[in-house]
């Protein structure tokens, strides 16, 4: 890890800005749900903010990502428009998917967010196809497949890793290992210690990093992205992290190891990065506070506009089933 490239001060600040947006947006979503204003299944990414923020600073708009039901952090980091996000969460016609997809199927091709799936393990086979398209286009774009530790036990993971290595696809397999697959801990789902060890079986590099550490995560992502852009093929990154709000918001969480949870909360990456920015003189306390205030204002504007927007017309049931409207 010591030989990884490190983010410079400006990049570190950029990572914090993305991560702060994710955190504050998550907190606002939960408040709105608790107030009964948003009704949806919500898989909170709170605690996993650093991972997508640290990879996205090395991605372009036209690099592809596929993500999963717990994916709003991946999208916001890559630049998902906040207004369209909130309108979609509110089921409005002005949402990015016209209110027809919801939180588990957010899509924004102009920012490279091609597919969001609600099926564990299904982001990887499709990310391969996007990588194949990118390779045929010859433009050195990459495709990032986001998934969790649970998905590493699904057949599609193995099929996809093998095919990506075989075809030297520009794919980054980004396993966000938050230690629980729904309610099942690692101890109940595998005997190997590291998911990244599985990369060797397919002939690709595999690394396990502390996904909550912006230096490590940025470095591992940059190396993998550069390898993919150079046509050298895929990499598996296992980014260790923790989810503070369980699998599905509202669950009882009895399956959770209380000591593990407490330890993870002590290591919350957000206050740590915030304090570091100030300590290292990258940004003053006032500057960081101003960033956070601006984010709050952006969220205010997005949610206000979302609630004022109309719901989709029922005629939408006949549109987008096929390219041609059905009778």
């Amino acid at each position: 890890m010591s030989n990884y490239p490190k983010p410079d001060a400006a990049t570190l600040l950029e990572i914090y800005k993305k991560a702060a947006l994710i955190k504050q947006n998550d907190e606002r979503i939960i408040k709105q749900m608790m107030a009964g204003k948003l009704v949806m299944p919500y898989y909170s990414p709170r605690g996993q903010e650093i991972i997508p923020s640290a990879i996205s600073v090395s991605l372009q708009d036209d690099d592809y990502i596929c993500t999963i039901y717990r994916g709003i952090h991946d999208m916001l980091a890559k630049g998902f428009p906040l207004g369209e996000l909130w309108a979609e969460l509110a089921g409005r016609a002005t949402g990015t998917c016209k209110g027809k997809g919801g939180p588990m199927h957010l899509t924004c091709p102009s920012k490279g967010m091609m597919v969001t799936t609600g099926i564990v393990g299904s982001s990887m086979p499709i990310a391969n196809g996007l990588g194949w398209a990118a390779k045929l286009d010859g433009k050195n774009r990459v495709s990032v497949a986001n998934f969790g530790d649970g998905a590493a036990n699904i057949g599609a993971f193995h099929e996809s890793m093998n095919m990506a290595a075989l075809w030297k696809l520009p794919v980054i397999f980004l396993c966000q290992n938050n230690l629980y697959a729904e309610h099942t801990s690692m101890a109940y789902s595998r005997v190997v210690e590291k998911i990244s060890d599985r990369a060797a079986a397919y002939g690709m590099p595999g690394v396990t990093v502390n996904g909550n550490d912006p230096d490590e995560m940025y470095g591992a992502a940059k190396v993998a992205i550069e390898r993919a852009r150079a046509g050298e093929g895929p990499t598996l990154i296992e980014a260790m992290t923790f989810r503070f709000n369980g699998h599905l918001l509202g669950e009882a969480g009895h399956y959770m190891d209380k000591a593990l949870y407490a330890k993870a909360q002590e290591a919350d990456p957000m206050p740590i990065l915030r304090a570091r920015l100030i300590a290292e003189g990258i940004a003053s306390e006032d500057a960081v506070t101003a960033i956070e205030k601006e984010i709050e204002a952006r969220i205010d504007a997005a949610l206000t506009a979302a609630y004022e927007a109309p719901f989709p017309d029922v005629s939408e049931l006949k549109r987008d089933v096929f390219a041609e409207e059905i009778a």
Partner: protein
Amino acid sequence: MTDTTTITKMTMIEAINAALHDAMEADPKVLVLGEEVADPQEGGVMGGTKGLSTRFGEDRVKSTPISEQAIIGAAIGAAVGGYKPVAEIMLMNFIAVPMDMIVNHAAKLRFMSGGQTGVPIVIRTMTGSGFSTGGQHADYLEAWFAHTAGIKVVAPSNPGDAYGLLRAAIDDPDPVLFIENLPSYWTPGPVTKEVVPIGKAKVAREGTDVTVIGHSLMVTHALGVAEKLAAEGISVEVVDLRTISPWDRETVLASVRKTGRAVVVHEAVKQFGIGAEIASVITENLWGTLKRPVERVGAAFSAVPFSKPLETAFAPQPDTIEAAIRAALA
């Protein structure tokens, strides 16, 4: 430009091969992937893709590991990324393996994204009983897909339609399941290289007494029975559905309105098969015009059996179709 004026005689598998060649030639975005599709692996287990990788290169024509989820996933991703992949799932029973990719993703991404992403893939697959292949190599499973919004289902009965429907499927903006009947692969027929629009049935034989509606090999069987019954003065109209979803209600209803009697035939298991939907729509629309209840012919409610007498009894044969026609005329 593809020559659409010359009539050539080809087998079904030759017509499919020609359609793939012409589509790849016409559009550099057309890709082919699947198990054994490239020439080093003999260009497909039945030779359907023979010659493609030699002519268009192994970047566009890729043999894959036996990884059906990865095959369909790669096709979906490439399609979302602007390409037109033709994925081969060797046998229709194997399609149970990548059902998540097909049903949850290929069929739904356009709707779930509010029209932002389309999935213009074709999934070619072959099936059909008659070769003693037993319970996992010969099923007709079209009803699974006809029941799924967002994917089209086509099933040609002859080489000309196979060519024309495959060209249309490749150029369609939505996913298309292209079902090939294995026992029909080597039956020759005229091919004009005209595109056959998806969603349009064809009156394969005109008649006045009864309408037989079917697809794939059942059309061939029905045409044979119709010829036989003509000698008895019975006039059978045969409608070849060609597209199973979205199906051509107008052509079917116009025919049954004329004859007043209908027999729906498919090789799939009769229970909950597409014949039930077609019979229902006929009854809803032509109640009062029908002279008899709609007859349905389909396979037994069992797995495809191995032993020859059982296999023959399992699937509709010309004599069972003939019996259903006679029942409709009673």
